[in-house]
């Protein structure tokens, strides 16, 4: 790994990137080769997947990234992905957050192989020209679930290839993070740069995937760590799990039943000389993770959303009231949008809503849900969110919607957030792992920050697509907000009226609560703000503490914050207040819009904060009760705003408020645990932000302050 890192850092990078291209079509292979060479990469090509796999297994070959076609006669791209995933720790593996999780698990399990291939950074799945939309979606989804970190659509454009190195960088960054757990400003900077690059690259790819990539990266990082740790012990005679051997293994497992399959029995059934129980046990573990990953993808049942959320919300006391409302709102949503969302997340079409929400959108939705959760939970959620955010940031430069989702998941795992996660459904299983991974990144502080930067950038791209979904989500949020609004302040949220269409629909679905928000569109937000202010006051108390932290964050993560700030500018005051979810309190004044911002900002901040969060958490908890409520409301508002397009930008702008970020930072610094909590919160917040703001806000963040 170190070698790879150093190479990445070199001045010539990405020139010399070692790329393995696999495509059975000679014409495509030759064009790809030529394009890659034009990018000054070192290219190795193979027109047979089996040969490519052999090359990957050969220790003498070192690749940074693998680009493989999906359709190949001797072994389709998915099998190759699967093999690579099982045998090697290729960064490439998955785009989808869920996948990412799985991937991490994979990596840790495949330590031996990983060691051999630790330089293999990424596996890109080249998807042939899309025949039909459904087809392509299906293929992309499958690629992701099988561990692809990105996908290219044929005919491949050189512009897309010029950016593939980002995957390597991300992977390396993750590694660095792992290595340098102390968060240094420098690292943050590095990461941010990559993330920005990532954004650019995404051109060819969908923004969504990138986020997942980030996650993946994070996971990868985690995996890498594991690998390293294990490396000492793992250097035993390796068992190469060939396709045949693996199939024997699968046959044995199927015969026994996945639940009852134990290494000893599998070994007996396989009856392969030289194979030890340990070999089988290790492979079984990987295989289970793999299955979990797959199932996670497919299962995104709405149930999780509903039930999980409820559970989490229930716990929240004062906030609970709000939460409940939110939940109710969500519940409504679930029926309609949730299902769709989930479906979308799965990439399945949303039969229910008919809303053609892209994966991204789904993700967004999820994010929103999280936001709601956050709100409901109030402070607790924030905490969680914050953690998630951090994780996301750290992990992946790519943090796209998917990532967000993951974050959410993580958030959920943390606390009330869990609820949200569950909605994601199958993701949960993975998400838990993701969370785990995420947490690791947090420890890395620096890493997180870096990733956060990257994520931000990515988010923006994704945002475009997500907007619709955002709108929806917004609607949902609003609903929650409305419930909260009971307080009155919420009404302001509605300002987003432009978004109204979406929200309204949702609202209809949602209980009356949210609808009040609908009225909110009025933006009247100001009055609401008053209400918020009250809350804010309490929040403010907490804020003070945050402020200190913010400063820190700013320094560290200025990038992100900046972006947000810029965006915020438009929003103006409100945003600032909101952004600081910590700041939420103060933000609360600004409230509605702020909420969104907050979440975003927190997300960003979290990334930065990672560390700060700890202190912040404490603070949050204090003010959280009120603040959260506000936040919830704010979120709703934000959502609305987002829906309105204009509003979205505004939100972002709000986010920019440094105050939030700073707070987060301090927290990060404080304690890892806190950070993790914060990260979760942030993540949650980010999720929403991504949906709405992502594009605008994130980019800005990266840019400048």
């Amino acid at each position: 790994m170190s070698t790879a890192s150093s190479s990445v850092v070199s001045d010539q990078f990405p020139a010399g990137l070692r790329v393995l291209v696999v495509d059975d079509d000679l014409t495509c292979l030759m064009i790809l080769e030529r394009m890659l060479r034009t990018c000054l990469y070192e290219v190795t090509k193979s027109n047979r997947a089996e040969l490519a796999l052999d090359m990957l297994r050969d220790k003498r070959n070192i690749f940074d990234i693998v680009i493989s076609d999906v359709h190949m006669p001797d072994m389709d791209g998915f099998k190759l992905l699967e093999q690579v995933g099982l045998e090697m720790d290729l960064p490439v593996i998955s785009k989808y957050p869920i996948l990412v999780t799985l991937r991490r698990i994979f990596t840790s399990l495949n330590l031996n192989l990983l060691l051999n291939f630790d330089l293999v950074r990424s596996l890109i799945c080249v998807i042939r020209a899309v025949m039909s939309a459904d087809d392509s979606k299906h293929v992309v989804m499958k690629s992701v679930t099988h561990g692809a970190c990105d996908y290219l659509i044929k005919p491949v454009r050189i512009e897309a290839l010029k950016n593939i190195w980002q995957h390597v960088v991300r992977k390396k960054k993750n590694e660095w993070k792992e290595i340098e757990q102390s968060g240094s400003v420098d690292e943050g900077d590095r990461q941010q740069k990559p993330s920005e690059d990532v954004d650019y690259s995404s051109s060819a790819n969908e923004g969504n995937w990138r986020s997942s990539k980030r996650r993946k990266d994070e996971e990868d990082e985690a995996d890498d760590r594991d690998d390293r740790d294990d490396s000492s012990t793992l250097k035993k005679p390796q068992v190469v799990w060939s396709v045949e051997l693996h199939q024997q293994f699968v046959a044995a497992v199927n015969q026994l039943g996945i639940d009852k399959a134990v290494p000893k029995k599998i070994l007996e059934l396989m009856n392969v000389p030289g194979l030890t129980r340990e070999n089988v046990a290790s492979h079984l573990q990987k295989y289970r993770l793999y299955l979990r990953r797959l199932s996670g993808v497919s299962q995104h049942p709405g149930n999780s959303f509903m039930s999980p959320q409820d559970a989490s919300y229930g716990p929240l006391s004062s906030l609970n009231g709000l939460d409940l409302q939110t939940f109710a709102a969500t519940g409504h949503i679930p029926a309609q949008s949730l299902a769709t969302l989930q479906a979308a997340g799965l990439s399945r079409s949303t039969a229910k809503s008919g809303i053609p929400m892209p994966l991204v959108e789904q993700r967004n939705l999820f994010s929103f849900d999280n936001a709601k959760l956050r709100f409901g939970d109030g402070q607790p959620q924030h905490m969680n969110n914050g953690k998630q955010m951090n994780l996301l940031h750290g992990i992946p430069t790519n943090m796209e919607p998917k990532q967000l989702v993951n974050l959410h998941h993580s958030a959920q795992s943390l606390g009330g957030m869990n609820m949200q996660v569950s909605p994601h459904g199958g993701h949960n299983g993975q998400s838990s792992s993701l969370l785990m991974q995420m947490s690791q990144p947090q420890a890395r502080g620096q890493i997180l920050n870096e990733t956060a930067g990257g994520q931000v950038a990515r988010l923006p791209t994704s945002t475009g697509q997500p907007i619709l979904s955002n709108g929806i989500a917004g609607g949902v949020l609003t609903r929650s907000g409305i419930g909260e609004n009971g307080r009155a302040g919420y009404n302001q949220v509605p300002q987003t009226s432009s978004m109204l269409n979406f929200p309204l629909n949702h609202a209809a679905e949602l209980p009356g609560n949210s609808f009040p928000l609908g009225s909110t569109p009025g933006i009247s937000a100001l009055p609401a703000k008053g209400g918020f202010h009250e809350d804010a006051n309490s929040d403010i108390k907490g804020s003070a503490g945050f402020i200190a932290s913010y400063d820190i964050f700013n320094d560290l993560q200025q990038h992100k914050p900046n972006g947000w700030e810029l965006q915020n500018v438009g929003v103006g005051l409100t945003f600032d207040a909101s952004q600081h979810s910590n700041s939420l309190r103060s933000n609360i004044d600004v409230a509605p819009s702020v909420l969104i911002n907050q979440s975003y900002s927190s997300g960003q901040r979290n990334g930065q904060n990672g560390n700060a969060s700890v202190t912040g958490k404490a603070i949050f908890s204090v003010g959280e009760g009120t603040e959260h409520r506000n936040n919830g409301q704010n979120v709703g508002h934000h959502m609305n705003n987002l829906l309105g397009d204009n509003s979205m930008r505004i939100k972002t702008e709000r986010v920019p408020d440094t105050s939030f970020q700073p707070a987060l930072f301090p927290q990060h610094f404080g304690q890892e645990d806190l950070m993790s909590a914060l990260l979760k919160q942030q993540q949650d917040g980010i999720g929403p932000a991504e949906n709405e703001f992502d594009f605008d806000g994130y980019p800005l963040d990266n840019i400048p302050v």
Partner: protein
Amino acid sequence: MDRNHPQHQVLYMRRSLFDQGYIDREQFIQLEELQDDANPNFAEEIVTLFYTDSARLIQNIEQILVNKPIDFARLDDILHQFKGSSSSIGAKKVKEACTQLREYCCAENAEGCMRTLQVVKQEYAVLKRKLETYFQMVRQVG
């Protein structure tokens, strides 16, 4: 400028290939941009490779359509590849015909497949002639 100037003729022919829809402009320009001093004839080499490789694919398609019952799954695999490589060189009309053939394949419409295969082969042959002429002119211009 002299309209009969060889260089002018090359440009004119290239443009007509684009304008008449035989070649996808963007993809073809990508190929041309991949040419450098070390690979001055990359576009032509790729087109040659495409025609060598796809002749085999067309043969396979014909065989599949002759053998009953028709193995539509295998046909789809081959068509997928054919479509991928023709889009890679920007063979627009060939790709479009391929897409149509694939639709018949998916519908398991043997008669439609046979008919559309003729269209594919025709477009394939027409483009081959045109490109051969074009690259010959390019080489003359140097």
